[in-house]
């Protein structure tokens, strides 16, 4: 369904992806974990073709999208829905116009019908009576829900989640996790989520892959990951500052000078 082969991507002198391979099956829910700034969002943006790799291929249903023309790429994108880290709602539009955006653009439908569908999708993500509010009037958790409703409005086959729980309180975060699981069960979509929140990863993943230094260093079921022998993965999932992963700008050796 989704296959990334030997992906390389640099921004200026900064190498973010260095020969990354990743394969995700139809109907699977995959979570990619990795540290902040390790390139998780960059992976998602390659899958949906917002970024083009310096080298390597991105297959969606066996078609390499890195060689497509713009117009063909926009057609492929209609198969996708993406939830952004900060929701990325259009702040010039109210909630239902946001949710109905793809329908307004790509289907010849009456606005009143689009509004109906938007309200129905909002209900699916647990929001009622918010359709006429502006994004600035919503809390962080509500924005994510609206973002999710917008991502599913055109009935995509593939859902991408960029840090769905980051910046939310634990209870709201769990509600979002529940929603993600529910989306997969009800809509039978393929999904890729990236996160550094292990609670969320264990809850929503069929399989988890760890991104480290521009490559996937391990893939396994949540149980396999929990019992991993790989010291890098161990350090990450237990959230320890001590181990092989270097925290940028922080030395592991501390020197205390006592007078």
């Amino acid at each position: 369904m989704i296959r990334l082969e030997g992906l390389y991507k640099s921004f200026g002198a900064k190498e973010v992806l260095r020969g990354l391979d990743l394969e995700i099956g139809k109907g699977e829910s995959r979570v990619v974990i990795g540290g902040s700034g390790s390139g998780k969002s960059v992976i998602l943006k390659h899958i949906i073709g917002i970024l083009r790799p310096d080298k390597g291929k991105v297959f969606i249903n066996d078609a390499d999208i890195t060689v497509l023309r713009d117009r063909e790429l926009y057609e492929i994108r209609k198969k996708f829905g993406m939830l952004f880290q900060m929701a990325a709602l259009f702040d010039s539009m109210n909630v239902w116009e946001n949710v109905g955006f793809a329908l307004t653009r790509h289907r010849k439908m009456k606005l009143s019908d689009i509004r109906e569908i938007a309200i129905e999708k909002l209900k699916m993500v647990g929001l009622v009576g918010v359709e006429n509010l502006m994004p600035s009037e919503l809390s962080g958790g509500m924005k994510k829900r609206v973002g999710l409703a917008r991502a599913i409005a055109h009935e995509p086959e593939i859902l991408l989640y960029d840090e769905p729980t980051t910046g939310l309180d634990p209870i709201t975060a769990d509600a979002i996790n529940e929603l993600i699981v529910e989306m997969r069960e009800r809509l039978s979509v393929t999904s890729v989520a990236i996160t550094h929140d292990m609670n969320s990863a264990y809850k929503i993943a069929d399989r988890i892959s760890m991104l480290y230094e521009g490559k996937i260093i391990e893939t396994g079921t949540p149980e396999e990951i929990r019992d991993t022998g790989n010291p890098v993965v161990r350090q990450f999932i237990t959230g320890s500052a001590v181990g092989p992963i270097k925290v940028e700008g922080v030395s592991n050796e501390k020197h205390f000078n006592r007078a």
Partner: protein
Amino acid sequence: MTKLIENLGRTIISFTAELGRIIMLLLETIKQTFIPPYEIRNTFVQMLEIGIRSLPVVLVTAVFTGMVFALQTYTGFKRFGAESVVGTVVALSMTRELGPVLTGLIVAGRAGAAMAAELGTMRVTEQIDALETLATNPVKYLIVPRFISGLTMLPAVTIVADIIGIIGGYVVTVGIFHTSSVVYWKRTWDFLEASDIYNGLIKACFFGGSIALVSCYRGFYTSGGAEGVGKATTGAVVLSSMTILISDYFLSNWLFR
């Protein structure tokens, strides 16, 4: 000395690269303009934004510019007895020069800043990426309407500025200095040619397109969070004002010689 040449070289290279990217964006904008579906609603919104919302400031500027121009020419030209040509001077300066340039600078400050800030905010909050994921080309959706509005509305506002400026000149010359109303209008019309007006509007058209393109460019390629948006906004105003003032000379040289 080598340092100086090195820096100069680097500046020239980065300037050329930036100019190249702006031209690429222009070509993409023109291409997207002609691909259906057309962004009629968005274009209309932007036309209101650039045209109608800029009008009050442009009107105030134009009327006072016309007035001060009449005041200065009248008192100056009186020294050699040429005060009867005030009408001509005001009309020619407004239509050829001050109408388009002042309108351009005001729109650069208002609408250009707004475009850069809006697109910049959309970039750093990933709204532009969101457009892409919703299978919508952001150049087509965001930049084409602004570019077309700049191209069409700046000349429209300039016509109003020309007229108001000439009326401002009239008020001072006739109302305050008590010269003949008939002479003012006669001098205005006798020497004003249609080419003065439409060449001025060609300039305005060019300025409008430049403001929109440069400001959208700055906003569209913003990076670095809220600070980046601030930089993009001031950068857009400075760059479009410079473009107006510099290109004005060359356009005038080409159109009015």
